[in-house]
């Protein structure tokens, strides 16, 4: 392997290195220093993120098993940024006494899932894809069950891992059928040997179900809310943005690059699934009181919006999906960040507890409002641009009915996002959450998110950059 090859794989290699450093560090750090290790790990990850930004060659490695291109690099960088924010946000939570002895493990598990996502995105072969997806899931289940002392955390863990094994079973079955009808598991080969046989489509649909599970599309979404609610907030955030984002990325790559032949079929499938996902997600989100659960259903609906970018099969579609994912990372992490801060300080997670928050904690409330507006697609924050372009991508190919259903759903969505705003700004409370000061890391995390929410929309350069980097690999 030449240096170029190393550079091509730098995301994975650097991350593996980080993984090893933490593993070694665990052995050598004493009990008391473990707490301080948090900072080191965050800095370490920041370095990883920075290295990821370096320019690098493109191409395939391992005989097509691994492929790296502008798009995948961009995707990984986006995921890096998101993960960095998650790590920053989990800082305080990790400092809790019951978590102190497992700080290293936390980082290792998280990093290994991220590594899985990288391999998933860079896969050139379904085996790599499969291993990547499992690597991205199994440690996550452990992380979901991370809070050993909580029933709910354990429940979240078991629900995640069992659902995921069912889904990966179905996905694998689908892959086996694709293998059987096409004869290869290399992406390039499958694209080169078109097959529109019924069995291929069956395989595709089973594969789709598995991806639907990862992206939490209806009807494969039912685990989502339970796991988000039970898991630690930072893990829920991670699941909702990074894991989902990565799944969306690889899914769109596979759809565009591996299955262009059966585009007619998958457009129909996506049409149906998108409508169901958006609608059901919204209908459930409507009545949620627990903030984490609320965000879970909202993220289901958001996943449905992602599909609008998928459906066109165009360059614009891929661009907008990536762009929206970036926006969505900032937005949703801001929301989860606030939920996490408040849960950390007061243990309150219900929307009713947020009544009158603005009067006691105006900055938090404003951030939350920005996040809600961005999720709802209200200008001038980034969500508006993201949604507009997503819808444009679907409309470009004439899916106006789908766009119509989606935009009408945004009204329902707006309703429940406004409920949060209403709770914070309008409702009055007998005993509101009292004023508290957040620590530096929480503030930093939110500041990054706010900057992202405000800037990503207006910065057309970013969109253009993504557009130039998108499509293909």
């Amino acid at each position, binding site marked *: 392997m030449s240096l170029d090859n190393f550079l091509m794989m730098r995301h994975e290699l650097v991350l593996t290195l980080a993984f090893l450093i933490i593993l070694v560090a665990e052995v050598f750090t004493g009990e008391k220093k473990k707490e301080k290790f948090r900072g080191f790990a965050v800095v370490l990850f920041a370095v990883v993120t920075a290295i990821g930004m370096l320019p690098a060659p493109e191409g395939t490695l391992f005989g097509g098993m691994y492929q790296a291109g502008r798009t995948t690099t961009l995707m990984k960088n986006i995921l890096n940024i998101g993960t960095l924010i998650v790590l920053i946000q989990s800082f305080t939570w990790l400092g809790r006494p019951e978590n102190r002895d497992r700080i290293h493990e936390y980082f290792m598990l998280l990093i290994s899932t991220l590594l899985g996502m990288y391999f998933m995105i860079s896969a050139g072969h379904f085996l790599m894809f499969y291993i990547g997806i499992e690597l991205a899931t199994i440690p996550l289940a452990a992380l979901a069950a991370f809070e050993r002392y909580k029933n709910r955390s354990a429940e979240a863990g078991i629900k995640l891992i069992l659902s995921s094994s069912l889904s990966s079973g179905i996905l694998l079955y689908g892959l086996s059928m694709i293998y059987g009808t096409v004869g290869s598991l290399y992406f390039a080969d499958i694209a080169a040997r078109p097959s529109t046989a019924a069995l291929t489509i069956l395989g595709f649909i089973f594969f789709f179900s598995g991806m639907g599970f990862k992206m939490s599309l209806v009807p494969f979404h039912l685990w989502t809310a339970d796991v988000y609610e039970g898991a630690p907030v930072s893990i829920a955030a991670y699941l909702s943005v990074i894991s989902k984002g990565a799944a969306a990325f690889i899914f769109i790559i596979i759809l565009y690059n591996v299955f262009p032949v059966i585009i007619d079929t998958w457009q129909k499938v996506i049409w149906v699934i998108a409508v169901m996902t958006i609608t059901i997600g919204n209908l459930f989100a409507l009545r949620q009181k627990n903030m984490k659960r609320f965000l879970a259903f909202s993220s289901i609906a958001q996943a449905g919006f992602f599909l609008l970018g998928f459906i066109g099969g165009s360059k614009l579609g891929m661009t907008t999906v990536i762009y929206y994912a970036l926006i969505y990372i900032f937005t949703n992490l801001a929301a989860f960040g606030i939920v996490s801060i408040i849960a950390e300080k007061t243990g309150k997670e219900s929307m009713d507890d947020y009544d009158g928050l603005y009067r006691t904690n105006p900055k938090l409330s404003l951030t939350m409002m920005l996040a809600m507006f961005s999720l709802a697609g209200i*200008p001038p924050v980034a969500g508006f641009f993201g949604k*507009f372009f997503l819808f444009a991508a679907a409309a470009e190919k004439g899916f106006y009915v789908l766009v*119509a259903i989606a*935009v009408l759903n*945004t*009204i329902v969505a707006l309703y429940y996002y406004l409920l949060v705003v209403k709770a914070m700004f309008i409702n009055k409370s007998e005993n509101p959450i009292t004023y508290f000061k957040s620590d530096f890391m929480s503030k930093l995390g939110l500041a990054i998110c706010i900057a992202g929410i405000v800037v990503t929309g207006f910065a057309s350069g970013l969109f253009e950059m993504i557009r130039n980097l998108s499509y293909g690999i």
Partner: protein
Amino acid sequence: MNILSCLVIIPLLTITGILLVKDARQARVVSAIGMGIQLITAFIIVFMYLSERKAGNTDQMLLMSSYEWFRSLNIYYTVGVDGISVAMIALTSIVVSAGVFASWEMEDLKKEFFISLMLLATGVFGFFISLDLFTMFLFYELAVIPMYILIGIWGSGPKEYAAMKLTLMLMGGSALLMIGLFGIYFNSAPDGGELTFNIIEISKITIPIQAQRWFFPLTFVGFGVLGALFPLHTWSPDGHSSAPTAVSMLHAGVLMKLGGYGCFRVAMFLMPEAANEMAWIFIILTTISVVYGAFGAIVQKDLKYINAYSSVSHCGLVLFAILMMNRTAMTGAVIQMVSHGLMTALFFALIGMIYGRTHTRIISEMGGLMKVIPFLGVAYVIAGLASLGLPGLSGFVAEMNIFFGSFEHPDTFHRVATIIAITSIVITAVYILRVIAILLLGPVRDPHYSEFNDARWYEKLSILALLTGIVYIGMIPSGLSGIIRDSIMPIVEKLM
């Protein structure tokens, strides 16, 4: 930098200013200064516009400038004005300034109130100067959303319900609109070439008629919701009655005009063939709006409800006139927008001030106010007279343009609709005089009324600003009407 962009930047700077000041009481001063500058800018723009025209510039849009934004989607930040936008800008700046003064004594969360108000202003100004559908849509939504906060926090009555309903219905409208915009955008280059959001560019091509048939109604209804198109007007009574004074003023005075403005600037201008085909449906709806709103207003008990229904009627007239598709009627529509904007803002300002004193808006609980607060009383009467279309005040000019323009239509259907619409002037007189009689005239109802102060200086300022506009247009209409008539020409030509 283009002077038009100042209209967007000044409110934003004002927000920054408000954030910087410590004392909440200073916030109002900052906003007043900001909006004062805004007012001046608006009038500078009016003069610049007029002098350009006088110098013989015959372009449809003047003071144009364009900045590339999203290159690959061909989205530009393009601004420019014609006579219509200039009129709307002037209206908006007057109403916003008046609104700031009308909310001088805001009690709770003053800073936040003014920030939201400025945000709303940003959206409205941005909307009127935009020539790019994307930015236009952006500003449109930007203008709607602060309403939620404004009504929700500072409103009265069932404010949460009203705020939610208003926001959802308006955003529902904008959702339809969005589809319409996509339809326009993706059909903006039927012969190949680059897609565009630019209104001027799109107006030069013909969108395929099949597409128009789909997207015209979507766009029209989308904007129509904001213009209180029957039966999608129901946000208006609840929303207006719950909103705080300045917000009602801005909303009824300016925001509802976004609907009418959009209807012809986008829906009809860009899709004239479908507009011609489908106008009859909307003419029926708007005719119903006009009469229905007026009848609805007669039996209301709450001052704000009366005015809200009256707005339904008057805004219905705007849409009605737009659909008549001739120069006179459309000119009338624009004048009606300006006129209604001023007088309804005045109404809401007065209602707010009266409410501030009597703490009720139920007309039957008040009486004889003319004796105790003559300034407000007289202003109310004048606003009422403007509303019922008295010559010499703005409403008359607008209505006459509308009626005569509509009646010009060679088709009997249009003329019958016109005559039905005309009946509204009598009904309007009935409810306006009913209110005046109960509220202002008659014996003083409550001895406590003698403790009331007549209008304070800031209230007077607010009222006079609006009154001046009403009287000016009513007395010397030819200036405004001339500007609008010239600018409406390209649109009408397209529709012919």
